[in-house]
């Protein structure tokens, strides 16, 4: 039966004056809606579960509400997700830590549903309430639940178990600890790849709570086994575990216990595993320390930079700067110059544009590490080559990181190549590329200085104002504001204001509107004098424009620049024009004129 809104309100009416307990009514509705056909109402009810529990009291919550919730796992994912989350904060509502174990059955059934997000949330809540269990309750209630999940029939319960070992292990007796380790071992060699993946992804976390001896004996053998699993998707997760395991072990054990597996992973037949190594390279580097980095990771990194799969090269290229930064200081420069730089040089002319653009996004960072002379001699040619790359993304990435180079050698070294690159991007056929370069303009302007800007780039900024794509015109307007903030009002008055105002007479009404948009954006930065003397007359004159869109934008502009003007010009110049527009034939013009009048308090 459907419990519609109408029947609820009719019940509410009949209840007035009845003998029943009025305060029960809203709770009764919430409880009934737990099983409403409308998922939104059920969700709403579940989200107010604490209200229901409070009304029922701790006793009935434990004996009636929780058993019902334990069996409601048929519901929609979003309802179950909300339920799993609620139960994590339910301890006080079932009677405090003494009774927290009553929350285990519903969370256990939620931890076995097939939808990953629900399971993960249930595990999260279980982890949370595990801390509210006393040591005794943990062994009597919580740990058996973990074991049940770990030996469950379906993979879903076994994957959930993987995330629970680490929270109970530190707080149980040594016999139980041994059992937990055994369960974890079993899951690492589970038949289904899903469970092995879950175990592999929790291996590092579990290792952290284990005694060092067991890390060396148990964890290492599991790690080695998972790292040579037949499934690529399991092996690649072992790489992640490698980071945490390596941090736990003393330096002298790393070589024998971890490095053979890591070397193997870096040369895995599957590119996905090598990709993972490349992606985690900085973390691995920190975990194994400087000596192993020098002897092992440097050649491994070189290989990854030369990998036959572009995805791997791109991931490694992304790490070039971080890797070099983290090299031990005493040998950093030598390693970079002799081992890394030759690979980087090759990547600059890679066949794959993703690889080149990944490199371009970090390569500039090398200049701070290598210093002025090396940058000029070795890096500068690479920057220049990338500035001329056929792929716009590569050029953009170089330009967007110019600041690193600026600090070391100054941007002038680059300016000869920079200009053609910027001009080409500014005129790129793809509007998104044009948009991206506009966004770097204020930065470039700051680094190149006002003279260079006026000479070379100003005309570009003006050309964007009449671009045929609105997004570009809008960005160009915004760009002008930032330039004025950088170079000052006087510069604005001399260079850009005349050009912007000139567009007010353009035959294209879109360009005339751009004038208004620019004035909106610039008035504040330019200040009262320029606004009153130069901009206001133009705006007022445009109130006679034959296009209604221009006229109502005049009204909007007046509203916008009003606060910058003095009260005299508001009263004598702005007010009459707005009053005229308020009597316009066009409804929109009228509307915005009236709005401006009221906002500026001119009525």
């Amino acid at each position: 039966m459907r419990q519609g809104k109408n029947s609820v309100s009719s019940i509410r009416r009949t209840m007035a004056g009845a003998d029943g307990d009025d305060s029960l009514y809203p709770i009764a509705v919430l409880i009934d809606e737990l099983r409403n056909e409308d998922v939104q109402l059920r969700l709403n009810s579940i989200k107010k579960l604490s209200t229901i529990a409070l009304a029922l009291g701790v006793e009935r919550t434990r004996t009636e509400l929780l058993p019902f919730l334990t069996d409601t796992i048929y519901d929609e994912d979003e309802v179950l997700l909300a339920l799993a989350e609620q139960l994590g904060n339910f301890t006080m509502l079932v009677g405090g830590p003494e009774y927290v174990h009553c929350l285990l059955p519903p969370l256990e059934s939620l931890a076995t549903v097939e939808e990953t997000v629900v399971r993960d949330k249930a595990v999260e809540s279980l982890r949370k309430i595990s801390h509210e269990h006393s040591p005794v309750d943990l062994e009597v209630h919580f740990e058996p639940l973990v074991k049940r999940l770990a030996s469950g029939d379906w993979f879903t319960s076994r994957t959930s178990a993987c995330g629970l070992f680490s929270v109970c292990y530190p707080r149980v007796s040594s016999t139980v600890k041994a059992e937990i380790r055994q369960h974890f071992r079993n899951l690492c060699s589970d038949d289904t790849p899903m469970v092995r993946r879950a175990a592999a992804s929790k291996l590092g976390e579990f290792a952290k709570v284990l005694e060092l001896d067991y890390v060396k004996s148990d964890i290492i053998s599991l790690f080695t086994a998972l790292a040579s699993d037949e499934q690529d998707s399991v092996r690649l997760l072992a790489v992640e575990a490698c980071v945490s395991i390596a941090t736990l072990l003393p330096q002298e054990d790393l070589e024998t216990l971890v490095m053979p597996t890591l070397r193997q992973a870096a040369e895995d037949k599957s590119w996905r595993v090598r990709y993972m190594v490349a992606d985690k390279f900085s973390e691995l580097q920190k975990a194994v320390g400087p000596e192993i980095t020098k002897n092992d990771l440097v050649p491994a990194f070189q290989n990854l930079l030369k990998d036959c799969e572009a995805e791997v090269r791109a991931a490694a290229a992304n790490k070039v700067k971080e890797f070099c930064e983290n090299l031990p200081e005493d040998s950093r420069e030598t390693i970079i110059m002799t081992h890394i730089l030759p690979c980087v040089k090759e990547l600059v002319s890679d066949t794959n544009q993703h690889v080149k653009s990944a490199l371009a996004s970090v390569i500039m960072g090398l200049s701070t590490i290598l210093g002025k002379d090396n940058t000029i001699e070795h890096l500068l040619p690479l920057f220049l080559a990338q500035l001329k790359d056929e792929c716009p993304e590569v050029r953009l990435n170089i330009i967007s990181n110019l600041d690193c180079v600026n600090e070391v050698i100054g941007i002038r070294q680059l300016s000869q190549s920079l200009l053609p690159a910027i001009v080409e991007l500014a005129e790129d056929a793809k509007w998104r590329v044009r948009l991206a370069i506009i966004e770097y303009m204020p930065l470039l302007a700051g680094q190149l200085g006002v003279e260079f800007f006026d000479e070379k780039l100003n005309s570009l900024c003006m050309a964007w104002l009449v671009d045929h794509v609105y997004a570009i015109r809008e960005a160009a307007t915004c760009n002008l504001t930032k330039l004025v903030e950088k170079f000052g009002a006087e510069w604005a008055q001399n260079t850009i204001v005349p050009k912007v105002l000139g567009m007010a007479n353009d035959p294209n009404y879109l360009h005339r509107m751009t004038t208004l948009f620019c004035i909106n954006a610039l008035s504040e930065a330019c200040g009262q004098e320029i606004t009153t003397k130069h901009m206001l007359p133009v705006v007022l004159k445009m109130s006679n424009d034959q296009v209604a869109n221009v006229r109502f934008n005049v009204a909007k502009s007046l509203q916008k620049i009003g606060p910058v003007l003095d009260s005299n010009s508001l009263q004598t110049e702005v007010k009459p024009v707005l009053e005229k527009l308020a009597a316009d034939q066009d409804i929109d013009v009228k509307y915005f004129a009236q709005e401006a009048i009221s906002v500026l308090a001119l009525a």
Partner: protein
Amino acid sequence: SRDFAVGFNFHSHPNSADVISTVEFSQSGEFLATGDKGGRVVIFQREPQGEYNVYSTFQSHDPEFDYLKSLEIEEKINKIRWLPQLHSALFLLTTNDKTIKLWKVSERDKQPEGYNLKDEEGRVKDISKITSLQVPVLRPMDLLVEASPRRVFSNAHAYHINSISINSDCETYLSADDLRINLWNLSITDRSFNIVDLKPDNMEDLTEVITVAEFHPHHCHLLAFSSSTGTTRLCDMRSRALCDQHAKLFEEAVDPASRSFFSELISSVSDVKFSHSGRYLLTRDYLSAKVWDLNMEKKPVETYQVHDYLRSKLCTLYESDCIFDKFECAWNGTDSVIMTGAYNNFFRMFDRASRRDVTLEASREVCKRRAVLRPRRVCIGRKRRESDICVDSLDFRKKVLHTAWHPTDNIIAIAARNNLYIFQDRHSPSGHHGMNVNELDIF
């Protein structure tokens, strides 16, 4: 000689529009799914007595219209693939030409009872009598089987999807259309990765289309796909992200002397299946079925003629478009026998070790009589036996395109138009002689 006999049960959709378009056993064989032209999926469950009865029926796909291209998208189910059963609920992927869906089929045997504000019939209670709150309780009810769509994977194929296949990692699957193969994660619907792309820059240079693709049963990195030119390629996903370059190419050299107008048409591969062991590939072209050893690319290790007598009929078959029929093929559970369909509601089985073969007929008449399936023989020219059938009297409108073999037992499912026939080996240990099970001699 082996006495290979089967019993059967038989399901027929009453409506002739409900032509079955795909048949697939679940990994355990306990369930069997069929898809039809009307976008419906029917799931059968094996009873303890061995018979398959309807378990659930649901509408998987509906007709749609692509407004951008002004194209109608048929609801016909092209393929069904079961996920390994790793949960109490069943999961299966179904696809039409454009959209793949992940379905969950689950059972429910409890329902909540008890309202505060109304009674179980829905009548509003007298509020004045409500003095305490009631929490609903769950009570047993009749078993209800529900099918719900869990994920919809759309907008990734510009051409018609011909195959879907689930990877042994149980995390990813592939979908193939005429020119491309995409790789998906089962839980991510808004993104897929293109791994094979045969589309030439200029469509006028198009020489080959993908006809079918399948993942290796154990090795997560291997996939095979076949094409209209008669080749089957094996790709290794480990070496590169893009598999445009194959690791192996299985192709048999054609004798130039026997080349004809129809050579390319009849060599097009209509189905490819890895053996359960993962060592062999079974391919089906128009006239034959071939078994390839993954270690030998230059020629098949076994070739079986399915209906070589049609060689003289190719002209007629071309004119009636029958030459484009896509026959599927199947391995038995131990990879010792292969099966594939033919015309006249015939299907063929080949025993690999003894090289014996048999032609059987799936027909309603046989089923009505509950007789034993008798081997049929097609003869060219004069009849040698009364039961023989002449090539000229074969009915090309009756075709067995879709067949499936139970993953472990000797149970087969044969789809012929809107009829589904399930035959069972009478000597198989789980084969019971129920009241509507007949025995049929095969070999």
